[in-house]
């Protein structure tokens, strides 16, 4: 298989673009068709085949540019100027200054990194150089950028630079690559040359030293790029595992996006289990073909009627979320779950409360997740919990709408500041709805301690679950799915 393409796809996956094997094969046949020659054609072609959403396309563009960009290669011509090659400057000056008895040398010595090389450089005069002996030396002296790139790549492959995992390995890999390219032989040669009495040899030694410095630069760049393309894979997987089992309150804000994606996937699964049920109704338009066909077996006497209308039974979901001070650290996460529910299911009505309960469905409809959550928290959050007030608000707002197709989900810790939680209202809801599910973010061992009212409220729930971590939530969701099937 095409090595360049496969490593590009690896880089894309690394950047979080999901690419299946089938798409890899497509990309392969695309490349066969369009070839590598026309960069912009290749880019627009691959961007049709590999990324399948708009955000992925943006990532693709960036990764493509990064991957296929031949960096502005710093030339290694003998009179290479300024920037990275102080020794080069020096060599040049030394060469020119030789007529004046090397007067330029001492004042530059302060800048130089490798004093011995420089000093000898100052002595050498402009003129012919001896030929390099070692393989790497010859390669460097030929100064063919492409040839050197190939050599670096080959050496990289030999030392498995693709397996680089953490940034501290960068130096190690750079060194290994240089070793694989024959750095030792070069070093010996340079040492030898510098010790040599002949001027052309010393000149060569100095030149080789300068080019070696340039090569190190290149290798460092190469490793850096390989790190960007390859290293994050394992890091991300590790982080994903950690996140799933971390208590929500402790997850750092920077990882909220990852959690959000996790949560959204779960909400979608929960919802899809509910929205699939179809009910055949004895009403609507007669389905003539089916009716006739089904009645053929009765000698065309029609008595088994079939109807066209098939109603998709989309249950209503009422989601109520506690955002009070006691669950402050969880509130964001629970709202995120609520928001995801709202996103995937058409008939979700969302409510939030600390003491007064209000509907936030509209808010969720108008803003994106982060904004909506922030607004909800601002409007309802932070107060002290009063379940009695919240339940009676719920009764006032929407008890009439709750019917035998409704599912009610309560997210909260049931801590009511030692006041009566009015379980009787919850019972009313319980009697009317199809399913009442309570999701408590606290560990089970903390339930019924202190002011937790769980034991009084739990009897009026069809299901009570602990959901403090994404992993637990996932388990709850899959259990819910089993219960509904």
């Amino acid at each position, binding site marked *: 298989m095409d090595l360049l393409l496969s490593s590009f796809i690896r880089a894309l996956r690394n950047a979080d673009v999901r690419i299946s094997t089938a798409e890899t094969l497509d990309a392969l046949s695309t490349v066969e068709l369009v070839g590598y020659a026309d960069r912009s054609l290749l880019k627009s072609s691959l961007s049709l085949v590999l990324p*399948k959403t708009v955000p992925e396309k943006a990532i693709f563009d960036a990764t493509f540019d990064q991957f296929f960009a031949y960096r502005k290669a710093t030339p290694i011509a003998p009179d290479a100027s300024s920037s990275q090659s102080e020794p080069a400057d020096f060599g040049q000056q030394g060469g020119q200054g030789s007529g004046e008895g090397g007067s330029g040398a001492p004042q530059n010595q302060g800048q130089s990194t490798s004093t011995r090389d420089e000093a000898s450089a100052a002595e050498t005069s402009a003129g012919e150089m001896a030929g390099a002996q070692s393989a790497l030396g010859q390669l460097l002296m030929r100064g063919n950028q492409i040839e050197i790139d190939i050599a670096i790549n080959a050496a990289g492959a030999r030392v498995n630079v693709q397996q680089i995992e953490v940034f501290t390995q960068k130096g190690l890999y750079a060194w290994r690559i240089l070793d694989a390219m024959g750095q030792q032989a070069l070093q010996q040669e340079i040492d030898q040359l510098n010790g040599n009495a002949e001027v052309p040899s010393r000149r060569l030694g100095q030149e080789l030293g300068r080019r070696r410095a340039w090569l190190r630069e290149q290798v460092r760049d190469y490793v850096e790029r390989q790190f960007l393309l390859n290293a994050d894979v394992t890091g991300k997987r590790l982080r994903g595992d950690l996140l799933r089992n971390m208590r929500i309150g402790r997850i750092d804000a920077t990882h909220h996006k990852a959690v959000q994606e996790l949560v959204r996937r779960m909400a979608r699964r929960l919802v899809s289990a509910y929205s699939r049920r179809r009910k055949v109704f004895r009403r609507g338009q007669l389905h003539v073909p089916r009716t006739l066909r089904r009645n053929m077996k009765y000698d065309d006497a029609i008595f088994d009627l079939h109807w066209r209308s098939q109603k*998709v039974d989309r249950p209503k979901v009422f989601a109520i979320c506690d955002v009070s001070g006691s669950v402050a650290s969880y509130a964001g996460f629970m709202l995120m779950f609520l928001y995801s529910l709202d996103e995937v299911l058409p008939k979700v009505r969302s409510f939030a409360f600390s003491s007064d309960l209000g509907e936030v469905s509209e808010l969720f409809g108008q803003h994106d997740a982060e904004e909506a959550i922030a607004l909800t928290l601002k409007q309802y959050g932070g107060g002290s919990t009063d379940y009695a007030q919240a339940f009676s608000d719920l009764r006032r707002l929407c008890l009439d709408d709750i019917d035998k197709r409704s599912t009610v989900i309560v997210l909260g810790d049931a801590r009511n500041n030692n006041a009566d939680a009015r379980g009787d209202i919850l019972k009313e809801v319980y009697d009317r709805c199809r399913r009442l599910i309570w999701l408590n973010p606290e560990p089970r061992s903390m339930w019924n301690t202190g002011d937790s009212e769980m034991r009084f409220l739990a009897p009026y729930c069809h299901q009570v679950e602990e959901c403090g971590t994404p992993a637990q939530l996932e388990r709850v969701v899959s259990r819910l799915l089993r219960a509904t099937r």
Partner: protein
Amino acid sequence: MADIPQIASSVTSLRQALEAHRYICSEQIATAVYLAYHLRKPVLIEGPPGVGKTELAKTTADMFDLPLIRLQCYEGLDEAKALYEWKYGKQLLYTQVLKQTLDEVLQGARGFAESVRRLHEFGDIFFSEEFLEARPLLKALRQENGCVLLIDEVDKSDHEFESLLLEILSDYQVSIPEIGTVKATREPPLVFLTSNNTREISDALKRRCLHLYIPFPDIELEQRIIHARVPEIPLQLQTQLVNFIHELRDLDLKKVPSISETIDWARTLLLLHADRLDPELVRNTLNVILKFQEDIDSVQGELRTLTDKATKARL
């Protein structure tokens, strides 16, 4: 008959051919058609409404001189409407007509088993090609010389329908239980699916398609589009109008004007014999490009600045 291989020989020639049919497009779009033709893969086109998603399929059909078969998706669309249906009336009629013959066939048959055996000799006549009513998808597969199949607004259909599409999109074949598998004829159809992103299309479907996102065009491209669609329009007005639309797209509107609205507006202004934009003119014709009263109200206030910007931008 259009010379299809000739047109599809390179991206540039495709782009030129599309432009000859008055569809001005970016490199990306032409590449999509190029790949769709050569790799024989369906193209899923996404993008805001009115950027020419459906138009691309229509123009492609035009350009290749192929028949366009269109399937408009909606909620509740099922295989009976999209794929095939049995001609039940014909089936029924034929049973009635053939009753006589059946009696003859069964004449002298002793016992139930023998009757059934004799009936079996007839084969499954009633569920054969003659009684099959082809709907768009099946029709597209059966086109002798290929065709362009447009599955419009696939996001409006149900999940079930998406799964139904999978077999067709990946292998260009459908399985009909009573008959067997119907494969595409020599030339499989070029398939375009469009979506307005009202819901996320499933990964399985996306995996089988090339994914083309058509964004709003940049100023230069839109100018060319207007020039191709409304060639009579004075150059000055065209420049100002496109600038104005681009100013609008930067505002926070409920529905930003799309290309089709730009074209409509250009036609409107042409009809009014305008040769340049002025605030009064814009005010009176704003309802052509903005479709919500809310948007019109919010733009009204800034009309003068916007018009000034648009008229000055390129002069």
